[in-house]
């Protein structure tokens, strides 16, 4: 115990930031409570708190609002926020660069393309297959789209363990354009119902949260949250370059493969259920690196917390600002995230030769 305590206090080794951890957990809790108790239906904190102690409990209508609308939306917000933030950390570790964000480098676009194709082309599947796959088709198609985009991007931008940042960002633009074009073709092919699905999905919103959609996306996100901690030390070592990571005893190919899989799966699942919500993956890890250093063992769990909390808050804002209408949450995150991205870019200017 004393050894542990003294090793924590050693100069240059940053201790576990328990204060920050506690703060983030509080943030997630507060955001969750706010999210559950605010909305157009008028079911407020007071009613919720009184319910267990009053004879009649919640009305049927309130129950529906709580369990079938607000709760799935909250869980979706938490899961998508954590997924996007963790996906950002994994990508940045893989590319050794803080500018890699699933939205910016085209992985979100690839995932989106997968989702769009699943929505439109899914109707061509034989009925028994469609029944079998059901709600899982869109998340998995998004995952494969994101995966293909990540692999392509890595091939294009990385040689000998070095990532060329300019190539990475340009490849992201190209991937985005390609996905946009094919999406256009799909829209052209779509029938009315599919068109409605597409439009709804493409706006980037948590409004469509249902338990059914969650059941399809959540396992993928939980799987990533499960494998991510095992990648932390490998990603730390990768910061010294691929060769050194290998000499530090890491199976570099395996670390890279798992990071690519994790980033694609998390992005794919998030995009499939919520459309394009950008910049969470770049803002969250960057703020945390400033606050507690780049060690991935701490960065990954804290990013999951901050991403979850921030996205639920953003969702809350998106449905309160223009209430009773809703602003798509993707617009909100871009409004704050894009200037932030520019700020990182300016700070990095000299050091862009990643």
């Amino acid at each position, binding site marked *: 115990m004393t050894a542990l305590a003294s090793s924590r206090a050693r100069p*240059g*080794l940053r201790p576990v930031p328990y204060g920050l951890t506690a703060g983030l957990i509080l943030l997630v809790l507060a955001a969750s409570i706010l999210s559950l108790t605010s909305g157009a239906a008028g079911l407020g904190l007071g009613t919720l708190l009184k319910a267990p102690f009053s004879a009649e409990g919640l009305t049927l209508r309130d129950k529906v609002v709580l369990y079938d609308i607000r709760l799935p939306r909250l869980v979706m917000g938490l899961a998508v926020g954590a997924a996007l933030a963790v996906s950002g950390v994994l990508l940045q570790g893989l590319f*050794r660069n803080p500018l890699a964000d699933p939205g910016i480098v085209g992985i979100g676009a690839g995932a989106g393309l997968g989702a769009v194709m699943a929505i439109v082309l899914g109707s061509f599947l034989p009925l028994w297959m469609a029944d079998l796959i059901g709600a899982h088709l869109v998340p998995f198609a998004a995952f494969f789209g994101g995966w293909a985009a990540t692999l392509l991007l890595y091939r294009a931008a990385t040689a000998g363990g070095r990532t060329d940042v300019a190539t990475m960002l340009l490849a992201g633009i190209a991937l985005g354009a390609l996905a946009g074009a094919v999406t256009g073709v799909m829209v052209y092919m779509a029938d009315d119902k599919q068109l409605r699905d597409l439009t709804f999905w493409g706006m980037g919103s948590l409004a469509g949260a249902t338990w059914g959609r969650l059941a399809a996306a959540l396992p993928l996100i939980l799987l990533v949250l499960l494998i991510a901690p095992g990648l932390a030390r490998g990603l730390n*070592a990768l*910061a*010294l370059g691929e060769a050194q990571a290998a000499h*530090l*005893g890491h199976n570099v190919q395996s670390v890279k493969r798992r990071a690519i899989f994790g980033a694609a799966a998390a992005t794919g699942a998030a995009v499939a259920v919520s459309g394009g919500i950008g910049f969470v993956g770049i803002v969250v890890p960057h703020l945390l690196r400033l606050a507690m250093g*780049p060690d991935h063992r701490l960065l990954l769990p804290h990013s999951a917390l901050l991403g979850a909390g921030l996205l639920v808050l953003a969702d809350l804002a998106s449905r309160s600002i223009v209430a009773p209408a809703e602003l798509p949450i993707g617009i909100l995150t871009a409004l704050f995230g894009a200037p932030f991205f520019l700020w990182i870019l300016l700070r990095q200017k000299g050091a862009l030769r990643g």
Partner: protein
Amino acid sequence: MLEITDIYASLAKREVLHGISLTAKAGQVLAICGPNGAGKSTLLKAALGEIPARGDVKLNGQSTAKAKASDLARQRAVLPQDTQVAFAFTVAEIVAMGQEAGDFAAEPGLIEAALAAVGLANHATRPFQTLSGGERQRSHLARALAQVWQPIGPQGPRWLFLDEPVASLDLGHQLQVMRLARAYADQGGGVVAVMHDLNLSAMFADRMAFIIDGRLAAEGTPAEVLTAPLLERAYGCKVAMNTAPQSGPWFLPQACDQA
């Protein structure tokens, strides 16, 4: 013992190493010398499995091609010629990565000791990116030292592979680092170092391998290898050579003539 047998390696479809065989013994410092572009770094990378190469490499009697990365990490540490770090890791955090990779993860005070050994005791908290070139090189050396801290382990001697360990160091730190390498070998470890400085190599190395154009041009003790005809062939200039009573040959660049 490090046994390199008949190594061929190509970079960008051009053969760079044309069949080099070389052995290094634990307890000794082996200096690999030769002109720019001769293939010294490539030889080191091929021996370390960083690049695909034909031939065989055995470390302590075991073929390294089939060994697990985590096992090798307990037996050898590597200082690369070119050292970049992504993200703002502190010097201590970088040295800790070395410590965790080796057999000494539980050793208290090791980071401080390794940093002190390279003269960076006061730099533990500094982000790597704020260091000078020589400080960066020395902090990576501290990381390598923390990884193979004791020269002899349960699987035999441990090894330090250093690509130009003193290239960007001042005179005092050049000597400090070379003495470290010397001491590591004297305690039973193996040291393989790519060197440009012939004087330091002659002072501190037991054996020398001289590479020219991807081939082993000479091998032996520094006094055997460093002959006027070889140096003229390698560097294209006549070098003024002298012999110090205790430390063998030494050289003066002022006296170099255009060949």
